[in-house]
Protein backbone atom coordinates (compact mmCIF):
# COMPACT_ATOMS: atom_id res chain seq x y z
CA UNK A 1 0.00 0.00 0.00
CA UNK A 2 2.26 2.75 -1.25
CA UNK A 3 1.32 6.38 -1.24
CA UNK A 4 2.15 6.85 -4.87
CA UNK A 5 1.10 3.59 -6.41
CA UNK A 6 -0.50 3.36 -9.82
CA UNK A 7 -4.01 3.65 -8.45
CA UNK A 8 -3.37 6.92 -6.61
CA UNK A 9 -1.65 8.32 -9.66
CA UNK A 10 -4.59 7.32 -11.82
CA UNK A 11 -7.02 8.92 -9.39
CA UNK A 12 -5.14 12.22 -9.21
CA UNK A 13 -4.70 12.29 -12.97
CA UNK A 14 -8.39 11.69 -13.46
CA UNK A 15 -9.16 14.55 -11.06
CA UNK A 16 -7.08 16.90 -13.18
CA UNK A 17 -8.62 15.79 -16.45
CA UNK A 18 -12.14 16.03 -15.18
CA UNK A 19 -11.49 19.63 -14.18
CA UNK A 20 -10.31 20.38 -17.70
CA UNK A 21 -13.36 18.63 -19.06
CA UNK A 22 -15.56 20.83 -16.87
CA UNK A 23 -13.90 23.87 -18.44
CA UNK A 24 -14.79 22.65 -21.90
CA UNK A 25 -18.37 21.96 -20.86
CA UNK A 26 -18.64 25.48 -19.44
CA UNK A 27 -17.22 26.83 -22.68
CA UNK A 28 -19.67 24.83 -24.79
CA UNK A 29 -22.65 25.90 -22.72
CA UNK A 30 -21.64 29.56 -22.73
CA UNK A 31 -21.13 29.45 -26.50
CA UNK A 32 -24.28 27.52 -27.31
CA UNK A 33 -25.52 30.43 -29.42
CA UNK A 34 -22.29 31.72 -30.87
CA UNK A 35 -22.26 31.49 -34.66
CA UNK A 36 -19.65 29.17 -36.06
CA UNK A 37 -18.70 27.64 -32.72
CA UNK A 38 -18.21 23.89 -32.67
CA UNK A 39 -18.56 21.88 -29.48
CA UNK A 40 -15.26 20.75 -27.98
CA UNK A 41 -14.63 17.46 -26.23
CA UNK A 42 -11.86 16.04 -24.10
CA UNK A 43 -10.95 12.35 -23.96
CA UNK A 44 -8.50 11.10 -21.38
CA UNK A 45 -9.81 7.64 -20.57
CA UNK A 46 -7.90 5.86 -23.30
CA UNK A 47 -4.60 7.45 -22.45
CA UNK A 48 -5.16 6.65 -18.79
CA UNK A 49 -6.09 3.04 -19.52
CA UNK A 50 -2.92 2.62 -21.54
CA UNK A 51 -0.77 4.12 -18.82
CA UNK A 52 -2.46 1.96 -16.20
CA UNK A 53 -2.38 -1.24 -18.17
CA UNK A 54 -4.87 -2.71 -15.76
CA UNK A 55 -4.56 -6.36 -16.60
CA UNK A 56 -0.93 -6.30 -17.62
CA UNK A 57 -1.94 -7.03 -21.16
CA UNK A 58 -0.56 -4.05 -23.01
CA UNK A 59 2.84 -3.66 -21.45
CA UNK A 60 5.99 -5.12 -22.87
CA UNK A 61 7.78 -7.70 -20.84
CA UNK A 62 11.31 -7.10 -19.69
CA UNK A 63 13.66 -10.01 -19.21
CA UNK A 64 16.50 -8.16 -17.59
CA UNK A 65 16.42 -5.78 -14.70
CA UNK A 66 18.40 -3.26 -16.71
CA UNK A 67 15.74 -3.03 -19.41
CA UNK A 68 13.53 0.03 -19.32
CA UNK A 69 9.90 -0.50 -18.59
CA UNK A 70 8.58 0.91 -21.82
CA UNK A 71 5.01 2.02 -22.00
CA UNK A 72 4.22 1.80 -18.32
CA UNK A 73 4.09 4.30 -15.53
CA UNK A 74 4.10 7.35 -17.75
CA UNK A 75 1.65 9.32 -15.67
CA UNK A 76 3.48 12.59 -15.93
CA UNK A 77 3.22 12.73 -19.67
CA UNK A 78 -0.42 11.91 -20.07
CA UNK A 79 -1.84 13.93 -22.91
CA UNK A 80 -5.58 14.20 -23.17
CA UNK A 81 -7.18 14.44 -26.55
CA UNK A 82 -9.04 17.68 -27.15
CA UNK A 83 -10.99 17.81 -30.35
CA UNK A 84 -13.97 19.46 -31.92
CA UNK A 85 -17.04 17.34 -32.13
CA UNK A 86 -17.88 16.69 -35.76
CA UNK A 87 -21.13 14.90 -35.00
CA UNK A 88 -24.22 16.72 -34.00
CA UNK A 89 -26.67 18.86 -35.86
CA UNK A 90 -25.26 22.10 -37.17
CA UNK A 91 -27.77 24.91 -37.02
CA UNK A 92 -27.96 27.64 -39.67
CA UNK A 93 -25.44 29.83 -37.86
CA UNK A 94 -22.80 27.09 -37.91
CA UNK A 95 -23.13 26.18 -34.23
CA UNK A 96 -23.42 22.52 -33.29
CA UNK A 97 -23.67 22.67 -29.50
CA UNK A 98 -26.47 20.61 -27.97
CA UNK A 99 -26.95 22.39 -24.69
CA UNK A 100 -28.98 19.65 -23.02
CA UNK A 101 -26.40 17.04 -23.87
CA UNK A 102 -23.67 19.27 -22.52
CA UNK A 103 -25.55 19.62 -19.26
CA UNK A 104 -26.07 15.87 -19.00
CA UNK A 105 -22.40 15.19 -19.65
CA UNK A 106 -21.43 17.86 -17.17
CA UNK A 107 -23.59 16.17 -14.53
CA UNK A 108 -21.95 12.82 -15.23
CA UNK A 109 -18.51 14.38 -15.04
CA UNK A 110 -19.42 15.91 -11.69
CA UNK A 111 -20.60 12.58 -10.28
CA UNK A 112 -17.45 10.82 -11.39
CA UNK A 113 -15.39 13.66 -9.92
CA UNK A 114 -17.11 13.22 -6.57
CA UNK A 115 -16.56 9.45 -6.75
CA UNK A 116 -12.87 10.02 -7.46
CA UNK A 117 -12.50 12.32 -4.47
CA UNK A 118 -14.26 9.74 -2.29
CA UNK A 119 -11.94 6.98 -3.45
CA UNK A 120 -8.90 9.15 -2.77
CA UNK A 121 -10.24 9.81 0.71
CA UNK A 122 -10.74 6.10 1.30
CA UNK A 123 -7.25 5.21 0.26
CA UNK A 124 -5.73 8.00 2.28
CA UNK A 125 -7.87 7.01 5.23
CA UNK A 126 -6.66 3.44 5.11
CA UNK A 127 -3.09 4.64 4.93
CA UNK A 128 -3.57 6.88 7.93
CA UNK A 129 -5.17 4.02 9.80
CA UNK A 130 -2.20 1.80 9.11
CA UNK A 131 0.19 4.51 10.26
CA UNK A 132 -1.74 5.00 13.48
CA UNK A 133 -1.83 1.21 14.00
CA UNK A 134 -5.54 1.31 14.43
CA UNK A 135 -5.72 2.69 17.92
Amino acid at each position, binding site marked *: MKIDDKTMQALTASLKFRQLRQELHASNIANAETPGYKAKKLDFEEALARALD*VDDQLGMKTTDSKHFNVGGGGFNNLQPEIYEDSNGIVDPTGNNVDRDQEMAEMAENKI*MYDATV*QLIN*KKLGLLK*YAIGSGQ
Partner: protein
Amino acid sequence: MSIENVGNMNKMLSNYSTQDWTKSAAIDQASLPKFNELNPNLAQGAAAPQSFSEIMASSLAEVNNMQVEANKAIQKLASGQTKNISETMLAVENAEIAFKTMNQVRMKVIEAYKEIMRMQM
Protein backbone atom coordinates in the same frame (compact mmCIF):
# COMPACT_ATOMS: atom_id res chain seq x y z
CA MET B 1 -9.54 -14.64 24.77
CA SER B 2 -10.09 -18.09 23.47
CA ILE B 3 -8.73 -19.35 20.25
CA GLU B 4 -12.24 -19.95 18.96
CA ASN B 5 -12.71 -16.23 18.50
CA VAL B 6 -9.75 -16.18 16.21
CA GLY B 7 -11.39 -18.95 14.23
CA ASN B 8 -14.55 -16.85 13.96
CA MET B 9 -12.50 -13.91 12.84
CA ASN B 10 -11.05 -16.07 10.15
CA LYS B 11 -14.48 -17.15 9.00
CA MET B 12 -15.63 -13.53 8.95
CA LEU B 13 -12.64 -12.65 6.82
CA SER B 14 -13.53 -15.33 4.34
CA ASN B 15 -17.14 -14.14 4.18
CA TYR B 16 -16.04 -10.81 2.78
CA SER B 17 -15.02 -12.57 -0.34
CA THR B 18 -14.37 -10.90 -3.61
CA GLN B 19 -16.96 -12.91 -5.47
CA ASP B 20 -19.31 -9.99 -5.67
CA TRP B 21 -17.26 -7.83 -7.92
CA THR B 22 -14.53 -9.77 -9.63
CA LYS B 23 -14.43 -13.21 -11.07
CA SER B 24 -11.15 -14.16 -9.53
CA ALA B 25 -10.14 -14.88 -5.95
CA ALA B 26 -13.02 -17.14 -5.04
CA ILE B 27 -12.49 -18.22 -1.46
CA ASP B 28 -13.05 -21.90 -0.90
CA GLN B 29 -14.90 -22.18 2.39
CA ALA B 30 -14.50 -25.92 2.66
CA SER B 31 -10.74 -25.83 3.11
CA LEU B 32 -10.76 -23.63 6.19
CA PRO B 33 -9.52 -25.72 9.08
CA LYS B 34 -11.32 -26.11 12.38
CA PHE B 35 -9.30 -24.76 15.21
CA ASN B 36 -10.50 -27.33 17.71
CA GLU B 37 -8.82 -30.09 15.80
CA LEU B 38 -5.47 -28.41 15.68
CA ASN B 39 -2.66 -30.78 16.40
CA PRO B 40 0.57 -30.14 14.58
CA ASN B 41 1.76 -33.64 15.30
CA LEU B 42 -0.93 -35.26 13.22
CA ALA B 43 0.07 -35.52 9.59
CA GLN B 44 -2.71 -36.76 7.37
CA GLY B 45 -1.59 -35.83 3.92
CA ALA B 46 -3.17 -33.01 2.01
CA ALA B 47 -5.93 -32.46 4.55
CA ALA B 48 -3.55 -32.06 7.48
CA PRO B 49 -4.63 -29.39 9.92
CA GLN B 50 -2.50 -26.36 9.42
CA SER B 51 -0.64 -24.58 12.13
CA PHE B 52 -1.85 -21.27 13.35
CA SER B 53 0.92 -19.36 11.64
CA GLU B 54 -0.01 -20.87 8.30
CA ILE B 55 -3.62 -19.89 8.77
CA MET B 56 -2.59 -16.35 9.60
CA ALA B 57 -0.31 -16.26 6.59
CA SER B 58 -3.02 -17.41 4.23
CA SER B 59 -5.49 -14.92 5.67
CA LEU B 60 -2.93 -12.19 5.19
CA ALA B 61 -2.51 -13.26 1.59
CA GLU B 62 -6.25 -13.13 1.09
CA VAL B 63 -6.53 -9.67 2.60
CA ASN B 64 -3.70 -8.50 0.39
CA ASN B 65 -5.44 -10.02 -2.59
CA MET B 66 -8.56 -8.07 -1.75
CA GLN B 67 -6.50 -4.89 -1.72
CA VAL B 68 -5.10 -5.74 -5.12
CA GLU B 69 -8.54 -6.42 -6.52
CA ALA B 70 -9.88 -3.18 -5.04
CA ASN B 71 -7.04 -1.30 -6.69
CA LYS B 72 -7.85 -2.92 -10.00
CA ALA B 73 -11.50 -1.95 -9.63
CA ILE B 74 -10.51 1.66 -8.94
CA GLN B 75 -8.23 1.71 -11.96
CA LYS B 76 -11.02 0.40 -14.15
CA LEU B 77 -13.35 3.11 -12.89
CA ALA B 78 -10.79 5.88 -13.35
CA SER B 79 -9.96 4.80 -16.88
CA GLY B 80 -13.59 4.54 -17.87
CA GLN B 81 -13.66 0.81 -18.49
CA THR B 82 -16.57 0.52 -16.10
CA LYS B 83 -19.10 3.05 -14.99
CA ASN B 84 -20.32 0.99 -12.06
CA ILE B 85 -19.46 3.24 -9.15
CA SER B 86 -21.32 1.12 -6.58
CA GLU B 87 -19.29 -1.96 -7.39
CA THR B 88 -16.06 -0.09 -6.99
CA MET B 89 -17.11 1.51 -3.73
CA LEU B 90 -18.18 -1.84 -2.31
CA ALA B 91 -14.92 -3.43 -3.32
CA VAL B 92 -12.89 -0.70 -1.67
CA GLU B 93 -15.01 -0.79 1.44
CA ASN B 94 -14.74 -4.58 1.70
CA ALA B 95 -11.00 -4.47 1.34
CA GLU B 96 -10.79 -1.79 3.98
CA ILE B 97 -12.95 -3.74 6.43
CA ALA B 98 -10.94 -6.89 5.82
CA PHE B 99 -7.74 -5.00 6.45
CA LYS B 100 -9.01 -3.43 9.63
CA THR B 101 -10.33 -6.75 10.86
CA MET B 102 -6.99 -8.34 10.14
CA ASN B 103 -5.32 -5.61 12.10
CA GLN B 104 -7.61 -6.18 15.06
CA VAL B 105 -6.89 -9.89 14.90
CA ARG B 106 -3.19 -9.11 14.90
CA MET B 107 -3.53 -6.91 17.95
CA LYS B 108 -5.60 -9.46 19.82
CA VAL B 109 -3.14 -12.20 19.00
CA ILE B 110 -0.25 -10.11 20.25
CA GLU B 111 -2.18 -9.29 23.40
CA ALA B 112 -2.97 -12.94 23.98
CA TYR B 113 0.66 -13.84 23.52
CA LYS B 114 1.75 -11.21 25.99
CA GLU B 115 -0.84 -12.44 28.46
CA ILE B 116 0.40 -15.97 28.13
CA MET B 117 3.99 -14.88 28.60
CA ARG B 118 3.00 -13.06 31.76
CA MET B 119 1.65 -16.19 33.36
CA GLN B 120 3.68 -17.26 36.32
CA MET B 121 4.94 -20.74 35.99
